């Protein structure tokens, strides 16, 4: 991997970087759409490339089950299997072991879980996770970490953090000895729950292993924790992580979260949200999400966003026909998935341009003003951005502020 920071925001911690991997260049900060089972829902790899996406994510847990490693290795890796010759990242499977399997027991050796095929106890060790990811062949692979829900408290969080560090060592050894280091890059995952002191210890330990890792992910978040805690953990990690390594915030996908994370110094993020919400009929826009299932869109002949370059909007696909199609025809889901993937890419692309131009704080102000409008700014966003020198209330001290996550959603009753 070659990672070059080419510009920094003069006010916030945001930066633009060029990350060169075996399958090309990805400009950071970027959002990575999730192709869980080797396909972005409903789209083809070729379409994704046309959308200007250069880095997507596959899930190791799922690919290991189906199609299985035999198929992937005979196909020549996941890139060839899915016809994707851009960059690819795989997670370690640790998160799905916890989220999808009720019976997972974590031991020092690895994660013991019930095989979804036979129900028999099966062990996933850090070494195995890395070997699986070597066969999948992603450009960025993740260490196996001991994942606990972000709402967990007590000694289990500390144990998980420390075990994640020990497992990182085993992953590094496995990766170093594999001969795959030239084409695949191992990322560490910072754990430690919501406890700043645990995060700090984890950061120290993982930074000490920087020679063995190409980048750092911030894990253990996006699990229902308070947003005000979330951003503080992100900030703490981003502040401390080395300048010369990419920083990846796992499971982040709402536009406001993305921009706050970028301002705090995050380079990469992934989430199923934009593609999943598309299938339920929701289009993401700079004015907030549009729920096209609502009957108020049935007679709207304008597109989702006239200025959006996505295939759906540039073809002037009307909200009315989308209302007619979504959740009934797969073509409706495809149209919104294309749009939402481009929306995410645009949010990040504009951030890159603003950082280069030295106008990133202005971009934040105008984005948030338009996105939230009269609904009011989420308090946590105001606090988070203040911590890096941007005041959303600048010039409008009486602007409305709302507590809670502030996630924007379109309801049937709003704006009749």
């Amino acid at each position, binding site marked *: 991997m070659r990672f070059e920071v080419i510009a920094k925001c003069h006010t916030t911690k945001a930066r633009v970087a060029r990350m060169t991997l075996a399958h090309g260049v990805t400009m950071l900060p970027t959002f990575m759409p999730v192709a869980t089972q080797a396909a*972005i829902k409903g789209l083809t790899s070729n379409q994704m490339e046309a959308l200007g996406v250069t880095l997507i994510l596959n899930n190791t847990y799922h690919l290991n089950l189906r199609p299985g490693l*035999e198929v992937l290795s005979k196909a020549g890796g996941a890139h060839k299997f899915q016809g994707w010759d851009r960059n690819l990242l795989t997670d370690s499977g640790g998160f799905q072991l916890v989220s999808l399997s009720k019976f997972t027991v974590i031991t020092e050796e690895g994660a013991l879980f019930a095989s*979804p095929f036979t129900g028999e106890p*099966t062990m996933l060790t850090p070494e195995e996770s890395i070997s699986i990811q070597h066969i999948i062949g992603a450009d960025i692979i993740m260490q196996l970490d001991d994942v606990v829900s972000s709402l967990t408290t007590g000694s289990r969080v500390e144990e998980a953090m420390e075990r994640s560090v020990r497992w990182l060592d085993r992953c590094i050894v496995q990766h170093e000895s594999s001969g795959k280091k030239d084409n695949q890059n191992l990322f560490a995952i910072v754990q430690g729950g919501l406890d700043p002191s645990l995060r700090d210890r984890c950061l120290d330990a993982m930074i000490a292993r920087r020679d063995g890792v190409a980048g750092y992910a911030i894990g253990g978040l996006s699990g229902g924790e308070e947003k005000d805690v979330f951003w503080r953990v992100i900030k703490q990690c981003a502040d401390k992580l080395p300048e010369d390594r990419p920083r990846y915030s796992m499971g982040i996908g709402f536009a406001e979260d993305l921009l706050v994370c970028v301002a705090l110094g995050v380079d990469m993020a992934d989430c199923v949200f934009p593609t999943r919400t598309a299938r339920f009929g929701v289009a993401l826009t700079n004015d907030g999400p549009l729920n096209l299932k609502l009957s108020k869109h049935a007679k709207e002949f304008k597109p989702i966003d006239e200025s959006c370059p996505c295939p759906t909007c540039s073809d002037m696909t009307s909200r009315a026909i989308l209302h007619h199609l979504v959740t009934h025809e797969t073509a409706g889901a495809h149209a919104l998935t294309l749009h939402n993937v481009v929306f995410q890419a645009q949010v990040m*692309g504009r951030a890159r341009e603003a950082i280069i131009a030295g106008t990133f704080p202005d971009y934040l102000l105008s984005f948030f003003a338009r996105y939230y409008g009269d609904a009011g700014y989420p308090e946590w966003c105001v606090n988070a951005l203040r911590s890096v020198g941007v005041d959303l209330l600048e010039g409008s001290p009486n602007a409305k502020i709302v507590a809670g996550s502030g996630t924007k959603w379109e309801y049937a009753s709003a704006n009749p």
Partner: protein
Amino acid sequence: MSQSSLSFALPSPVRYGPRLGTITLRRGADTASSIIIATPGLLASTSRGAVPHLSRDHVRITDALRWVNVPFETFLEQTPPIPILHAQHPSNASNPHPLHTFLGFDESRHLLSISAREPTDTREMPPNGNALVCVHSLRGVRKLAPAEWAAYARIAQPDVVLALSDTPCTDAPYSQKRLTKSVERSAAWLATLLRPGPIPMPLPIPKKLKAQPVAAAAPAQPAVALPPTPPVFVHLAGLTSLPARKAFAASLLEPLYGPHITALAPLKTLDEGVAGYTIDLAPLKAALSALPDTPSPSAAAVSPSEDPEAHIAALLRASLTALPPSKPRLVTGTTSPHEVLRLIATVGADVFDARWAQRAADVGVALDFAFPVRGERTPREIGHNLYDVRYRLDFGCFSDALPAPHTTATAPEAGTPTCPCAACAPRPPPARLYHGHDAPSVSGEPEKDPARVLPAYTRAYVHHLLHTHEMSAHALLAAHNLAVLDAFFAGVRGVLSASAAGVEGGPVEDAGLFAKEVRAFEEAYDPRMGVLVEAEAAWRAVDTARGKGRLSRETGAGEGEGVAPADAA
């Protein structure tokens, strides 16, 4: 407003045999911007106005899509229907093709027709009335009046409108009285559609809706001048009865009488106003299967149970006996390429719906057949049920008969036609999107050459996508199956024109060569279409089993696809 014109050139107007023709849709005065559809050819079906599984960018790169039919009934959930509101919207005041715009079809490439109903839907419906057709929408049965249909066609301006037909979808078999009524109503409804001049507005709509405030864009004038009716295709009514079919044809040809003379002027017969004929096989087959199983006394040469296809051919020929052979004949509800070939050979049909091939994509079948048959003639299926475990490690392209131009497995022989679909011949986009500081000047990466064909998506990949219930599988298969069917028709036309050229001075089409190739096709490809049945079962199994715990359920049922267990690292 530029008017389009539809024409059908049939160098040799054969009444009942194979016909080579060309449908030309001319847009305005510019002859260069014409849509040309060589026949025999295909018509693609849509669902809710969209080609199933294809996003608009895929529609644009699927060359097989030339004629697209839109069943309008799904839009009749609302009154007035949304496409009508759209066409009447001020922003479309000077748009000659508002329906193309609304549905995302390209008026320079797509001939768009509308039919009131999905022609293959034979679900039982309430009976039609003298001036009301029952149609199926997501919110239940709706009633559509012939005058409404005429107005919708003239407002939405598709390229072709299929006239309303009184096709009974009640409890078959149908009495002679019912079929007589069907023939009379169908002719009367055609007359309503052909009537020029203003249409009374507002249209007769149910009282309940009238009470509501008038919808924004609906003009409230008593009568408005509308664009002329697009070219009309009429369904050959009469269902299972030879006399009824002949009577309907006769009613098209008889001189207009009474008030129709002035109302339909300058037409002298209904047939003069008709651009083509449609034949819906699905209701016909349903009605035939409900007939009592006795040798047909009604002059048909063969009884339905002995040879259903020959019986259907006899019925269709009865409709066509007197009608001019020079008009295109569109057939919906075919279920196999074998059936298509026989209809070409024995009836002389020109355009066939692709619905069965599109349905094959729904259930995971990649079509793999070609006409004329090439290479070995061992019996085989017309496609691959990609759910089948045998494709788990098959990294070949979807079709052997129509191979991908660039596969990792084997290179196609020189001279063999290759599959142009989005799955078999993916190409870098002519212009990919950039989002900010990621252009080639920044990344240092040049744009990819859009002429370069990339490796095809493989059977193994789609096998995986099907078993993981990923929608991408169906997008790839839908594009592919349309391309295979399109190539099939190109092959049919190739054989027909070769035989025409080969016989000097004789009958223009040599039925001999074509018939020989049809026989070879029938020997090579299993006409039972078992692969579709098999795939449908597998598709249902995945569809019902999905959800948490699916893998173990499948293993327990002995239907696991045999992938390595999770611990095999």
